[in-house]
């Protein structure tokens, strides 16, 4: 336990922010945790189950709630951090409610926004009734009801990978990393909940980079009969029966393919959050060409900001899964403590 108590601000109460706040508080530091939503938890609040093992998201939520249940942490919700400025040895921090505070160090953990699927106009999200996002499918899992807009039980569902990722048309050349495995996880869940429903994943590459991801992919084929078609869906439309019609090339057959579906799920990717972008612009924090925060060194200084005393944690720096986000947050805490003790 550190002997000198310092005050650290954590901007963002999602997975990274909660873990960082918890770890700092555990070491005896005073933490102010700022969350823009009414409740902490970030995107995890919406998720039903997690890849690769489909454990309930609630288990991780509970862990994180316990993590910030510490009297050293002061949580403020419904308010966001708008600007961070170096002032002598301290950091001067401005909040969206007009108040300001001073801290010895700060960790930015403003996270990501899900890609706005309306920007991929060819898929008709927000126009055709049964085009939904991966997040909305989680809502359905939470509600225990997977149905079309008019309440029918779907007999065929398609999942489109890389929506808003790897696509210069929406100015995102980066891979969001987690969508492939999310698609596989959701495909398996659909097959388990609706055994008569056929499921198709439309992918360009299967990026099963994490432990047990490839195994899940294999299980999805071997046990759950999930279908995979290699090709980026070109467009979706609705027919007279209000079923969706998609066009895609089956690149492994080298021929165009057409298929009717009851539901199309868009695996929306990660973008730097709007709140984080605002903060970065106001504070002149560098952003990379992918618009996430640029770190001090992408190999060995991946938690460092360019301002002394300012550290980064989680998906404000790049897309990552929960495991990596928690590790990244802990690493940010290590860097913060080193800074505070050697300053």
């Amino acid at each position: 336990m550190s002997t000198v108590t310092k005050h650290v601000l954590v901007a963002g109460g999602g997975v990274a922010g909660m873990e960082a706040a918890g770890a700092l508080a555990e070491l005896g530091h005073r933490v102010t945790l700022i969350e823009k939503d009414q409740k902490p938890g970030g995107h995890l609040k919406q998720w039903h189950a997690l890849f690769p093992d489909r454990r309930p998201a609630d288990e991780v939520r509970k862990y994180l709630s316990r993590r910030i249940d510490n009297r050293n942490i002061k949580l403020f919700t419904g308010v966001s951090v708008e600007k961070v400025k170096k002032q002598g040895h301290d950091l001067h921090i401005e909040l969206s409610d007009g108040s300001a505070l001073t801290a010895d160090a700060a960790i930015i953990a403003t996270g990501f926004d899900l890609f706005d699927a309306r920007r991929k106009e060819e898929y008709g999200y927000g126009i055709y009734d049964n085009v939904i996002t991966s997040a909305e499918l989680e809502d359905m899992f939470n509600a225990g009801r997977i149905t079309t807009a008019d309440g029918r039980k779907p007999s065929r569902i398609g999942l489109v990978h890389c929506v808003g990722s790897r696509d210069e048309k929406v100015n995102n050349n980066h891979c969001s990393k987690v969508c492939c495995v999310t698609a596989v996880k959701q495909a398996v869940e659909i097959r388990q909940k609706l055994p008569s429903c056929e499921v198709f994943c439309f992918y360009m590459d299967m990026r099963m980079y994490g432990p047990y991801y490839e195994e899940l992919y294999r299980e999805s084929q071997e046990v759950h009969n999930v279908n995979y078609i290699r090709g980026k869906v070109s467009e979706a439309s609705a027919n007279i029966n209000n079923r969706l019609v998609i066009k895609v090339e089956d690149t492994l057959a080298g021929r165009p393919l057409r298929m009717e579906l009851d539901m199309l799920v868009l695996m929306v990717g990660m973008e730097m959050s709007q709140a984080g972008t605002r903060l970065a612009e106001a504070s002149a924090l560098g952003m990379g060409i992918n618009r996430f925060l640029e770190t001090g060194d992408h190999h060995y200084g991946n938690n460092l900001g360019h301002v002394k005393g300012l550290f980064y944690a989680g998906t404000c720096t790049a897309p990552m899964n929960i495991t990596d986000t928690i590790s990244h947050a802990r690493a940010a805490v290590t860097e913060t403590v080193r800074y505070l003790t050697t300053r």
Partner: protein
Amino acid sequence: MEDLYTRLMQDVRFEEGLNACMNCGICTGICPAAEYYHYDPRNVVDLVQTRNNDIIKELLRGETIWYCGQCMSCKTRCPRGNTPGLVIMALRKLSQELGYFTESEKGRQQFAIKRVIGENILRDGYCIASYHVDPKAHPEQGPAWEHYYTYLEDSLARLGGELNGTEGPTRRISSDVLEELKSIFKVTGGQDLYEAIEVASEKKAEEMGLEFRKEGTDFEYFRHVVTADNGNHQTEEEDVRREIYEARR
């Protein structure tokens, strides 16, 4: 042999049309040609980006590049900002400049397009005008067109035009304007392309033992190129040939 990829890069449309393809197939998924020909724009772009001279030469000599209909639907959606349609246009231009187009059935058709559309432009100032579309050669135009064409002068007059008039629809383009057009074609390489098509076609006609004339459309070779159909344009033969070829290398 001259590096064909370098030649292609000199075409601004090629530079614009080809970045790096990741073979997602979004182009082929909505390509009208992919449905009715053995055609896969994704594959064409992937072959070109190998920068392999032999592969590009095969494309220039083959049927594949002539299947595209240039609707440019591929441009709208490519996540890498490529335009396979523009790549095709650059390949077609080079194929004609090098005379390779006569090696394929679909490529040989360029002669007919030059003789009809190409010459309409310089002779009349139109790609196409009512008096060019003879219902006998265009039965698909149907009875409405046959009637319009038969009574062309009357039909046009009722709609506010004048056949061989000086203004309005399908007016006669004056000779000084046509001289300007010809001059533009001379200065910009249009005339050279026309000549390249003529020279290679005449050579091919001789090789095939078909009658060829320096003018018009009423002779064996012309009729041959507009009607010939070997029935193989939807089969996988091209693919097979390429696979064997690549395997040998």
